[in-house]
């Protein structure tokens, strides 16, 4: 399975953020998306997820052919988690399962999922309004994992989680990458090189794959930073 981005352009007024991007992401890999502040990483995700208008096409290609990317193919975990605050975590999950029971493969009950994401019994009946940022993030992640989309976009997903959960999440991403295209945006270089199979940088409004070749981690990091520092003069 492949995700093709074809001729993607996006401007905000006069300011051009993404310029004629053509790129292919492949199944079975976790892509680390790096870029400096304001480079347009979230804009790229918003374009892919159809949240903002942009010019360009997105295609998903698998064994059955090539089709335009459908919103239901994407799971988007945003850095500021969006959850219905006046539902308890249990209600939220149960409603979600109830609504999507026909679409979810290998459906389990809510206890199984809470156990999986490590949310205690006493927290399950708390309002999501009273959840910490990290806990909301866990719930958001859980919903996206259960719905099993083909493409998973993760915008700074681990920064608000404690280190134990971070490790669990990393394991989880590695375990599901086989059947998914995972694009992971972060500012933490160590996290990107540790977790991701490929590093893609968004610099000068374009996407660029940073090949690891046979470099050791130190030299690879230097190469990434050098690429990020490199600013073209328009």
């Amino acid at each position, binding site marked *: 399975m492949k995700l093709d981005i074809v001729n993607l352009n996006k401007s905000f007024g006069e300011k051009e953020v993404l310029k004629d991007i053509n790129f292919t992401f492949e199944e079975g890999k976790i892509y680390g998306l790096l870029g400096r502040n304001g480079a347009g990483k979230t804009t790229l995700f*918003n374009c892919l997820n*159809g*949240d*903002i*208008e942009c010019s360009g096409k997105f295609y998903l290609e698998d064994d059955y052919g090539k089709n335009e990317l459908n*919103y*239901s193919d994407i799971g988007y975990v*945003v850095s*500021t988690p*969006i*959850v*219905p*605050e*006046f*539902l*308890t975590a*249990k*209600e939220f999950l149960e*409603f*979600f399962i*109830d*609504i*999507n029971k026909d*679409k979810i493969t290998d459906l389990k009950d809510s206890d199984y999922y809470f156990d999986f994401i490590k949310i205690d019994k006493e927290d399950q*009946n*708390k*309002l999501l*309004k*009273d959840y910490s940022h990290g806990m909301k993030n866990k719930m958001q992640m859980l*919903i996206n994992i259960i*719905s099993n989309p083909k493409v998973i976009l993760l915008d700074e997903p681990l920064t608000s989680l404690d280190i134990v959960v971070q490790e669990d999440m990393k394991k989880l991403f590695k375990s599901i990458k086989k059947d998914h295209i995972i694009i992971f945006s972060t500012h933490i270089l160590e996290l990107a090189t540790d977790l991701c199979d490929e590093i893609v940088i968004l610099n000068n409004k374009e996407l660029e794959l940073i090949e690891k070749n046979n470099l050791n981690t130190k030299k690879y990091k230097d190469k990434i930073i050098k690429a990020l520092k490199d600013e073209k003069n328009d």
Partner: protein
Amino acid sequence: MINTLRTSFKIDMSYATNSFIYILRKLPILKDLITEDAYSSKVLKSIVRIISLIFSFGKMLAYKFLYFFILIGLANLLNERFTGYVFIHIYFVLTLLGMFINNRLISPNSKKYFSVILFGMDAKKYTISTFIYDLFITTLLNLIVLISIKGMIHISFNTIYLLLICSLLCRIIGEAFSIIFYKRYRYLFNSNTKLYMIISIIFLGICSLPYFGIFILPNMILLLLIPLLGLSILSFIYILRCRDYKIIIKETNSYNAIMNKDEVSSYNRQKMVEVRDKDKIIDNKKIVGKHGYDLFNTIFFERHREILLRSALRFSIGIIGVYIVLSIMYYMGQGNFIHSFLLNNMGWFVLILYFVNRGSIITQAMFYNSDHAMLRYNFYREESVILGLFKRRLGTVVKVNLIPGILIAVGNVVLLFITGGADIITYISMFIFIISLCIFFSVHYLVLYYLLQPYNKDLMIKSGTYSFITLLTYFVSYYASDIKVSTLLFSIFGIVFCIIYIIVGLLLVKKYAPRTFRIR
């Protein structure tokens, strides 16, 4: 479709029930009795579900009654002899206006985002089933209220049915129009303020035609029903066939969904108190020779000229306009009405000054643009600093509120004089009452702010007591307008109340503010 509606209804009920428990848990006494386990207690939730169902239906019904009472009031005002016909005219014209501005089918709303995007419900089934349900409930509420007020406006059952059918058809046409408009222009018709204002002014103009003896009669509405029926059938088919609900919900909600209701209102509050660019430059003359907290206070108020001084001046221009209109009315022979109003309806001025005073917004600006940062420093939390700044702030707030206040006080005295006059005590008491009311509102909001400090850094109100008292302030001001006693009596009681309140408020601030004025 039925299943979708049922699930959506269940989610709504859970939301409403949890919100209700959440509010109960914020109240004194109850917060100790109801623990967090309440959210998982089936028995308690069933009880609360019934209460909240009754409550939400009651609220909708109350709003409908309020809306229709306003219509009757307007009808009476426009033409006393034919209230029934005028009511029908206004109802019909506002129904037509609603086609453009009261579209709910694709309007942004976080509930739609959660249901369709987050829970993954079928967008079309969700939109259409909730729309039909909404049509049913709206028609039912209209029916209940129209039957209840039937006697007051002397309309027949046939007319009621005519109006109900008319609303139903117009709503369907309006919703289809909103989708077509959105698909063409990629924005909602009613989100364009300019279009909203133009269309509202046109229709409100048509609404006021009965003042000149021109009505749209029931028979004419009956005739119009034929094209409306045809158009609504086409519209309904369009709504049923439309396939773009998911993308529309996604596009219209992606920004809103990030914010819940509280966040939207706190975001609006933040925008309102933002320092405007033109206020960033301060005239040097205003600050020369000032030091310490005096300078601090002056800079603060100078940087907020837009929401304080200019806004008070805008109100003042409006007030002068109203007094000019009233003077014209006097020359047109309405002098007796104005004279009698001024002598018996002082309560109205409580409501007017409630709206005119800038107390609430000033405290928001104080917190957002100054105190939430400054209160983190210990030197700012010293008793002498808190009380010293309170005094300076109170002085400035009173000055700002007195600009429209003095205009109203003088306007009333002059108007009373030219429309027939009164004894000297009435003049004086009326004047002092308005001035003390101005000072009262200034003190009221500042005292509440210093005693309860209700905001968090995002300007969300976190104090239930503060919300309760501000709501109570509104209701008292609202009901005061209904009190019909002589101006002399009302003013004297008012003055005494204001003086006592101001003294008690200031004493409370002196005693408690150094402890209560803190970041939450």
